[in-house]
């Protein structure tokens, strides 16, 4: 403080005795000095003083001094000291935090820093000015500029990002800071870049273009990789910013062989296993895992995911991750994140999935890593996040992996029941019957993923038999699931799991539907649930899922079970529940908050176990089938099955409706054409009439003309006689020459009139010709369309025949399809009628749907 006072004294001169200037006055005088003093030393001292006062008198310094400080930045470029004072003072003014010095000052509002930031940004040149000082090598200036920019960015990220984008070299300058040998500069530049790249893909790309990954990997390596300090973490956070949701940079990262530089960093040194992990190492490793996940996240472009996955396998990164998985001493949260990461590295990539299936845990006896992971999943004592991670990893393992799916189901089939070692299938079945409802849910979902898009395994799973208790005969897994649903002590979460498993199992599999419907009390249970009247959000979910399962039983019903055919089940819904109620209950599933939560991303995220209800893949199935089921069920009516295309297979009805559309379209076209033809005919007639009129008029005129010519000849003869009688014919014979002249004019008038009319006739002839040509082309087009339609009808007949044939085949195979055959025939005849009537009437759909 003494220094400050003496400093002030030198700048302001000694205060008048007995009169202490207020802070505001002091600031005013200092600003005045910065503005007007011609001596650099004076201005520098004033700036230094302003910097010192800017904490306590922030508002005064900011309000009065900002433009003076900016002026210093413009004018005093050559003096590093004054520039650094000006930058520092500006930095204090715009800082978002409150200073201790101003804690008791009521005029300082919370967002004063932000307001001054806005003021400073009014002119974007000011930011460009600061960016320019990044090039100044002087430590004070460079460092102050970095700090000011970081603070401005924190306040107004978007604005600064925009300004940086339009300053061509700005990012280059910033990147150069990363190779500054002075660590403080480098470290603070890193923080600045982290702020700058947040959420702005264009800046992220430019930073990557400016060799960011090389620089960052160099720093990480120099600082000791995952064993390094917080600077390593900062580098990794910046890397993460550059890669997240940025396909261009992901591609660049992959192409630049940076995955290869990442891989060795995951190797855990033996010392670490013994001495444990420092908190910083945990943070570093966490960031490294995030970087890997940013490259293979399921939301990325498919082609990028698969090329990165391949590289991760070939460069040993996957292996290193799996070693961590099976290693000892890895902290729980790192282990959890590693499991998630392994999941995404193998998801949908057969070779990587196969690799995981061969990884063995160093346990005694040695067990496959997958089995060890599943053991943790069904273990009640493990943390929730770890159990969720295992399920996610297991789902990723099953994703598009027919081999993996088959081998899981295989472990459950009778032939392999002799094997003494613990298998994945056994663990999951155990999980289904556990008393821990989360284990029930996790196991049901895991099992469900073995069936996705795999009809063969759906049928295989029907063969699974369980020994429930000693002495009683084994029951099928399917039956056991139905039984579990009806047990009152089986919790809601568990039931949701089983219902999702059953829905996936039965969907697109008629054999499975038949097996389910044959299971005693299965239908009764579903109907009872759907018609239940419990008012609770989660009960609604159960009711909705039961509706869905019921719908699947209808949709994929092969009509071979007496009393459980499509119609029977639909009748049941109509009578016991009502169509509207059924549809509403079905809709409750997607309205449940668990639905939107699960549908967001494949990864399973839950803060508490009770949040886990629906699964990502199940939501996809639901979305695909909900409307189909609604349509099917609504195709039935109280008065019995309706004769609609819904009784056809979905492909056949699609085809039929396609043809209908085409026919309807052609009908419309034909009607248009007909109208055009009619109009043209009318036009044609008028023209014909005009032509006849014109011809008549013309012949009249010709007659008249002839007459006149005769008169003229006569008159000329008379005239010649008169002329020979007189030497001066004209004046001598004015009486005869008068009418002669008049006649001549008349003749020439008629001649020209005649010529005009002839022209008109010609024109009319041409137009008539055009018109008739036009109409013939329309007729041609009409014929063409007609033929098209006939072709289509023929196609349709073929199609129908094929359908009939298939029906026949089905019938021969013992399927009961009689009624539908008849319906088909009727339907077909009706359609023929429809099309033929529509040729002559504009009413294109005379058939009434009753």
């Amino acid at each position, binding site marked *: 403080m003494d220094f400050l006072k003496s400093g002030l004294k030198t700048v302001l001169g000694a205060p008048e005795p007995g009169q202490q200037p207020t802070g505001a006055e002091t600031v005013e005088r200092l600003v005045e000095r910065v503005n007007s003093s011609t001596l650099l030393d004076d201005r520098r001292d004033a700036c230094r003083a302003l910097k010192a006062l800017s904490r306590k008198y922030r508002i005064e310094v900011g309000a009065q001094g900002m433009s003076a400080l900016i002026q210093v930045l413009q004018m005093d470029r050559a003096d590093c000291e004054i520039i650094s004072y000006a930058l520092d003072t500006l930095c204090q003014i715009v800082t978002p935090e409150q200073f201790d010095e101003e804690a008791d000052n009521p005029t300082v509002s919370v967002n004063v820093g932000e307001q001054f930031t806005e003021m400073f940004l009014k002119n974007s040149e000011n930011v460009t000015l600061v960016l320019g000082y990044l090039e100044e090598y002087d430590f004070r200036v460079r460092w102050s500029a970095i700090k000011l920019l970081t603070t401005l960015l924190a306040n107004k990220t978007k604005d600064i990002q925009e300004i940086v*984008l*339009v300053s*061509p*070299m*700005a*990012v*280059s300058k910033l990147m150069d800071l990363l190779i500054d040998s002075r660590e403080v500069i480098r470290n603070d530049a890193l923080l600045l870049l982290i702020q700058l790249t947040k959420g702005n*893909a*264009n800046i992220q*790309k*430019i930073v990557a*273009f*400016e*060799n960011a990954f*090389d620089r960052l990997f160099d720093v990480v390596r120099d600082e000791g990789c995952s064993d390094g300090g917080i600077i390593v973490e900062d580098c990794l956070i910046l890397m993460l910013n550059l890669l997240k949701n940025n*396909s*261009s*940079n992901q*591609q*660049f990262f992959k*192409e*630049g*062989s940076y995955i290869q530089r990442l891989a060795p960093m995951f190797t855990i040194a033996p010392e670490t296993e013994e001495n444990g992990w420092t908190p910083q190492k945990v943070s570093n490793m966490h960031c490294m895992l995030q970087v890997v996940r940013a490259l293979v996240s399921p939301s990325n472009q498919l082609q990028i995911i698969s090329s990165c996955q391949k590289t991760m396998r070939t460069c040993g990164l996957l292996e290193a991750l799996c070693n961590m998985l099976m290693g000892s001493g890895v902290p729980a949260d790192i282990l959890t994140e590693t499991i998630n990461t392994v999941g995404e590295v193998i998801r949908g990539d057969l070779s990587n999935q196969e690799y995981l299936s061969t990884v063995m845990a160093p346990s005694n006896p040695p067990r496959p890593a997958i089995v060890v992971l599943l053991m943790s999943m069904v273990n009640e004592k493990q943390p929730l996040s770890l159990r969720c991670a295992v399920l996610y990893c297991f789902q990723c393992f099953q994703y598009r992996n027919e081999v993996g799916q088959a081998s899981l189901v295989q472990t459950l089939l009778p032939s392999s029941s002799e094997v003494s070692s613990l298998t994945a299938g056994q663990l999951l079945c155990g999980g289904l019957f556990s008393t821990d409802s989360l284990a029930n849910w996790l196991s049901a979902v895991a099992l469900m993923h073995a069936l996705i898009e795999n009809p063969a395994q759906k049928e295989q799973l029907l063969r699974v038999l369980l020994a429930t208790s000693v002495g009683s005969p084994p029951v099928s897994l399917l039956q056991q699931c139905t039984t579990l649903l009806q047990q009152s002590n089986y919790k809601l979460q568990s039931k949701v799991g089983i219902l999702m498993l059953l829905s996936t199992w039965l969907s697109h599999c008629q054999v499975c539907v038949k097996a389910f419907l044959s299971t005693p009390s299965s239908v009764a249970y579903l109907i009872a649930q759907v018609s239940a009247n419990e008012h609770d959000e989660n009960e609604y979910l159960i009711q909705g899922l039961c509706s869905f399962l019921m719908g699947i039983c209808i949709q994929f019903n092969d009509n071979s079970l007496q009393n459980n055919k499509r119609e029977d089940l639909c009748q049941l819904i109509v009578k016991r529940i009502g169509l509207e109620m059924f549809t509403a209950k079905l809709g409750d599933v997607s309205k449940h908050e668990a639905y939107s939560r699960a549908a967001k991303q494949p990864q399973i995220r839950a803060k508490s176990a009770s949040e886990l209800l629906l699964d990502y893949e199940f939501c996809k199935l639901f979305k695909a089938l909900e409307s189909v089921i609604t349509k099917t069920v609504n195709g039935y009516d109280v008065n019995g099955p309706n004769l609609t295309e819904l009784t056809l297979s979905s492909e056949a009805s699609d085809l039929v409706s396609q043809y209908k559309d085409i026919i309807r379209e052609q009908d419309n076209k034909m009607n248009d054409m007909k109208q055009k033809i009619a109009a043209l005919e009318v036009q044609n007639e008028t023209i014909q009439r005009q032509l006849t009129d014109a011809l008549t008029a013309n012949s009249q005129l010709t007659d008249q003309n002839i007459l006149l010519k005769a008169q003229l000849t006569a008159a000329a003869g008379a005239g010649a006689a008169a002329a020979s009688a007189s030497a001066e014919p004209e004046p001598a014979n004015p009486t005869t020459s008068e009418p002669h002249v008049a006649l001549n004019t008349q003749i020439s008038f008629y001649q020209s009139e005649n010529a005009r009319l002839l022209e008109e006739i010609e024109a009319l002839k041409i137009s008539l010709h055009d018109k008739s040509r036009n109409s013939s082309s329309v007729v041609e087009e009409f014929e063409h369309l007609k033929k098209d339609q006939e072709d289509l009808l023929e196609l349709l007949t073929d199609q129908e025949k094929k359908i009939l044939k298939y029906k026949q085949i089905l019938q021969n195979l013992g399927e009961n399809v009689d009624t539908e055959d008849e319906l088909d025939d009727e339907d077909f005849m009706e359609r023929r009628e429809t099309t033929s009537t529509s040729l002559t009437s504009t009413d294109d759909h005379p058939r009434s749907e009753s």
Partner: protein
Amino acid sequence: MSYAYLFKYIIIGDTGVGKSCLLLQFTDKRFQPVHDLTIGVEFGARMITIDGKQIKLQIWDTAGQEAFRSITRSYYRGAAGALLVYDITRRETFNHLTTWLEDARQHSNSNMVIMLIGNKSDLDSRREVKKEEGEAFAREHGLVFMETSARTAANVEEAFINTAKEIYEKIQEGVFDINNEANGIKIGQQHSPTNPSLPGAGNQGGSTSSGCC
């Protein structure tokens, strides 16, 4: 994949002239008639062989719209080569070349190799800019010139590879400071002549068969 050198390229020119298609044709050997407008910049890479040396090309595709101009400018300084593209069926894209060139010259390092490309040579019937005009412009401004078709792939390989050759020659002549990464050139870890046992990913580009060496 090891390489002797790495060159950074950018592709510039008006929107719709076929920049993204050229990149796709060069890196993936396919043509996509309906292509998204490039927002900002996209990235592609490929390995080629020049003088028996493996050279990795990293190519940034830019957006041509005025709104993205300032973003494009950020890429000039760090690029060793630029493909300046116009569309032979749209004269205005040719007329804008001067602006593009000024922009590039102002913001790039002086050694950047610029290749002028008249694209869509397959649409000869709709041609609005004569080949001679392109040649004259290139001669006047000291650029290399080529007409290409991203659709038929005609001259696409050559355009990228000839640019690389030009850069390579400048390196041999010592014009480029190859130790300054800001020039868009990086020396690979393995600087010896090509290792014949290198896996094919880089060679499969077929640059060796393009017959331009």
